[in-house]
């Protein structure tokens, strides 16, 4: 018993360690956390996967053995006790019981006594001794003792079931060298035999990532930092993967339409699985466990932000790379993810509410020197502070928050309006006209002053177009006295704004059909466009990618579990509950009645192995019943 309890304490402590130390993380995380020395020490102790560590399994085995010994030693005794009635009780010892009653009898009848006892659920045996004394031995609640066998047998069965589902066999194979973990990314054909597990593998929990429309007949079994390839007795095909959403946008269900084909018999099964309803086939259960993008195809428009260039097209696929030359610079694109739904807290009325803002795609852009920035660009405009913007986030490291570039949507909710505006800024002829119109407002009659003014405005705008407000600010800082700086800066901003407005007016005069700027007033749009244009200098990329179209392809992450021990664990669990019920709620009672030949009265004695308050009352009740019966 002491041994078993020590083992149990060990299991308890190990379990606690397993919950405090995050299990199965990438090893780098542990190295960062503990340093090289402790990392290796903990690794040797198997602390990154406590529950599959050798010593943990060893403790489990010891527990099974010790509990088995305990049960096998005690059970025969208990079974014997079940049959045995102690008929050799002495008067003296019965009288010494705590619950012992002398009951006066007027007219004794054995059958009445037996009836009373059986009515109270006692089993009994009686015997008349040589001296003519009648002794009755009765008992009830024997199941309490069986409870001991049930619970402890249950512990054994559950532990064995658990061990069956552990990876003990694989561990042995690893030790003997017949199986080896693969640490590199290999094509299926290149995987050596030692890295493949056949169908005969007794139990496993393996993963499979399936693209829509794809089929696979092997799964991946993760092990430490590497993996094994697990062969399956069937081929799994994914027809479709769906995510459904609540109206608030939170995910409601993940579903995969599967086709499973038995390799031997060719038997086909079609089933839709989701998170709480897996598919079991040939003893292997297939679960919906995760999902990711499966290579969505994106059709993008490439807008050059810093020239009047026409748009160009770019076709890309998630997890693929693209290369692009912009303004004589090479940019390398890695498209990493596509999200069809994005739930953000958006202000609607006066309240922030989680809202689906539509698709976005996530990509990294590397320049020639290898520096990368990460971008997340949304397809549709979002409402921010009562205006509608196309939004794209940029960050330099995954730890940072995104900084957002916001380009105003035009009157049609499209990006074209802003892009026209950008094109106008970059068209010298039109810009020149606009500046002239602004100058003419201040100097209607022209002259030399107006010429000077024109040159000043022209300079301000070239500065702005080259590098945004900060470029102008720089020249103000270096050329003007401090007390004038703010005033001049404000007047420059105003001038830029006026020119912007004139640009649009000119555009509208030349394109009477155009409806991009049919706002009540262009005022706000011009201001937002200028801000957007200015921010584009901090975007880290001279182009804006607009998502025009996509073909959504998803991958479903499946888990395949072969768990032959499950049956035993469940069986053991039922036994455990039964056993605990028996032990806790059944009161074992033993009772003796001695009727001496030469005595009218009878002697009643009761005992229980566990004294409880109720037993006092029970004993009293029985004695009173007897008194009543015989009086």
């Amino acid at each position, binding site marked *: 018993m002491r041994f078993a309890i020590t083992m149990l304490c060990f299991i308890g402590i190990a*379990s606690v360690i397993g919950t405090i130390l995050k299990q199965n993380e990438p090893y780098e995380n542990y190295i960062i956390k503990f340093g090289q020395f402790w990392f290796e020490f903990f690794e040797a102790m198997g602390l990154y996967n406590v529950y599959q560590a050798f010593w943990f399994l060893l403790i489990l085995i010891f527990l099974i053995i010790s509990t088995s010994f305990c049960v096998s030693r005690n059970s025969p005794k208990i079974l014997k006790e079940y049959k045995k009635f102690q008929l050799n009780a002495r008067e003296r010892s019965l009288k010494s019981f705590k619950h012992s009653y002398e009951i006066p009898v007027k007219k004794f009848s054995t059958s009445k006594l037996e009836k009373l006892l059986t009515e109270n659920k006692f089993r009994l045996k009686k015997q008349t001794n040589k001296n003519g004394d009648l002794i009755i031995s009765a008992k009830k609640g024997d199941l309490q003792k069986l409870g001991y066998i049930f619970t402890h047998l249950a512990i054994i069965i559950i532990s064995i079931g658990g061990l069956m589902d552990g990876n003990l066999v694989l561990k042995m194979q690893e030790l003997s060298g017949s199986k080896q973990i693969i640490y590199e990314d290999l094509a299926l054909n290149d995987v050596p035999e030692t890295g493949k597990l056949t169908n005969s593998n007794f139990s496993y929990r393996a993963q499979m990532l399936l693209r829509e429309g794809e089929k696979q007949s092997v799964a991946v079994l993760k092990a430490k930092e590497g993996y094994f390839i697990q062969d399956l007795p069937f081929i799994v095909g994914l027809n479709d993967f769906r995510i459904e959403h609540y*109206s608030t946008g939170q*995910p*409601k269900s993940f579903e995969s339409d599967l086709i499973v084909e038995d390799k031997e018999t060719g038997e086909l099964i079609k089933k839709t699985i*989701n*998170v*709480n309803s897996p598919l079991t086939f040939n003893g292997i259960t297939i679960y919906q466990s995760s999902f990711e993008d499966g290579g969505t195809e994106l059709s993008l428009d490439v807008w050059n932000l810093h020239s009047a260039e026409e748009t160009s097209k770019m076709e890309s696929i998630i997890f693929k790379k693209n290369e692009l030359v912009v303004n004589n610079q090479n940019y390398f694109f890695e498209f990493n993810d596509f999200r069809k739904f994005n739930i953000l807290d958006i202000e609607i009325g006066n309240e922030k509410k989680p809202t689906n803002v539509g698709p976005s795609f996530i990509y990294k852009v590397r320049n020639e020197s290898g520096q990368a920035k990460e971008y997340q660009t949304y397809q549709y405009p979002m409402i921010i502070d009562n205006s509608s913007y196309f939004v794209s986030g940029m960050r330099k490291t995954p730890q940072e928050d995104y900084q957002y570039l916001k380009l105003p949507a035009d009157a049609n909710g499209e990006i074209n309006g802003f892009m026209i505006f950008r094109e106008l800024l970059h068209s010298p002829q039109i810009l020149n006209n606009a500046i002239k119109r602004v100058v003419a407002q201040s100097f209607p009659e022209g002259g030399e002053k107006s010429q000077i003014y024109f040159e000043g405005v022209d300079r301000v705008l070239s500065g702005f177009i080259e590098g945004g407000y900060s470029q102008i600010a720089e020249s103000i800082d270096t050329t003007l006295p401090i007390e004038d700086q703010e005033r001049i800066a404000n007047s420059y901003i105003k001038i830029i704004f006026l020119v912007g407005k004139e640009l649009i007016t000119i555009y509208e005069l030349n394109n009477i059909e155009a409806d991009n700027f049919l706002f009540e007033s262009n005022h706000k749009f011009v201001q937002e466009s200028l801000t957007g244009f200015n921010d584009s200098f901090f975007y880290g990329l001279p182009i804006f990618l607009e998502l025009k179209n996509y073909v959504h392809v998803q991958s479903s992450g499946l888990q395949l579990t072969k768990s032959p021990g499950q049956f035993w664990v469940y069986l053991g669990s039922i036994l455990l*509950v039964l056993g605990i019920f028996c032990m806790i709620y059944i009161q074992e009672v033993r009772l003796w009645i001695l009727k001496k030949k030469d005595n009218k009265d009878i002697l009643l004695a009761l005992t229980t192995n566990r004294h*409880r*308050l109720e037993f006092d009352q029970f004993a009293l009740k029985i004695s009173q019943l007897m008194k009543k019966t015989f009086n």
Partner: protein
Amino acid sequence: MIFKKIFNYLFIVSMLMLPALGLFKFHQYMDYYEMFILVGTGLTFIWMSNYWQSFKYLVTSVLALSFISIFLYEGNLLSGEEQFILKYFLSSQSAIMWMCSLYPLSLLMYWFYLLKKQAFFGNFASQLTWIATAMGFIGLLVRWFESYLISIDVGHIPISNLYEVFVLFCLITALLHLYYEEKMNRKELGAFVLIIITVAVGFILWYTFSKGADAIQPLVPALQSYWMKIHVPANFIGYGAFAIAAMISIAYLLADKGILRSRLPSLIILDDLTYKAIAIGFIFFTIATILGAVWAAEAWGGYWSWDPKETWALIVWLNYAGWLHLRLVKGLRGPMLAWWSVIGLVITTFAFLGVNLFLSGLHSYGEL
């Protein structure tokens, strides 16, 4: 007497009829398990109220008031803000707030009773606890209904996040307490049991007002299972019983040191009650853990994944198995076991709350 008899018959009839009516009207929305749970609930209530008359009154008033509330809603969630009775009394939020204010009050009354020994205070405290419990159950039932008013697909039983299960914890602990109180016919222990309930109420209030936790959220896919309807309540019967055991153990330890000794029940009775509470808790906790394993086998792909919550459930279980061994096998009694059961509550609380706070895992339904 005759009224009581009629009432009892009516109770049994309605416990059979209401589920039948539910089946008749709503069977197309239910799967077999849910039908089983519905009918099983009615039968369980009949069975329980056989042992416990007061339980009948509780069930009856909770159902009656919940139906009134549902009726007053007229299918419109906004009625909860506009309709007078709903706004101040029977909307789920107000009902739960009533619960939150009445439990601390009854704690106070229990202490008056413990110190003054006037029967009036004792009875008043019990009444308050009953009413608070009824309000809490009404709150949960109406919340269930409200979740369907938000949207049919959002609707779900309100035991799916930390806020809801804390309310459940208060209710179950109070019910177990009321049961023992009535069976023992002694009211002193309320002064201790209501402490833990009041602490939980404090948490609910903090959680509501600082985190807005009372908002009804739709269920994440992993929680959409009929197993939740059995697993969670079973777990909380376990937690509630362990909490009661610990509070009675505190009373035991005080009495053992001579504090309040003359006012509390005898040490033997306290010890026996602790044992009973732990026994009940152990059974339900065992069943809950097993059901959890069965559920996990269906949702996560394995009956046991050594997820922190599972692991801590095992630790709690081993702890109380140890307690029961010492008591049943070695026949140990006394302060040491009382201390053990108090520490048991600390472990249980960690499993219940600490795991959600400090450890991550698959059981991520209730984060702060």
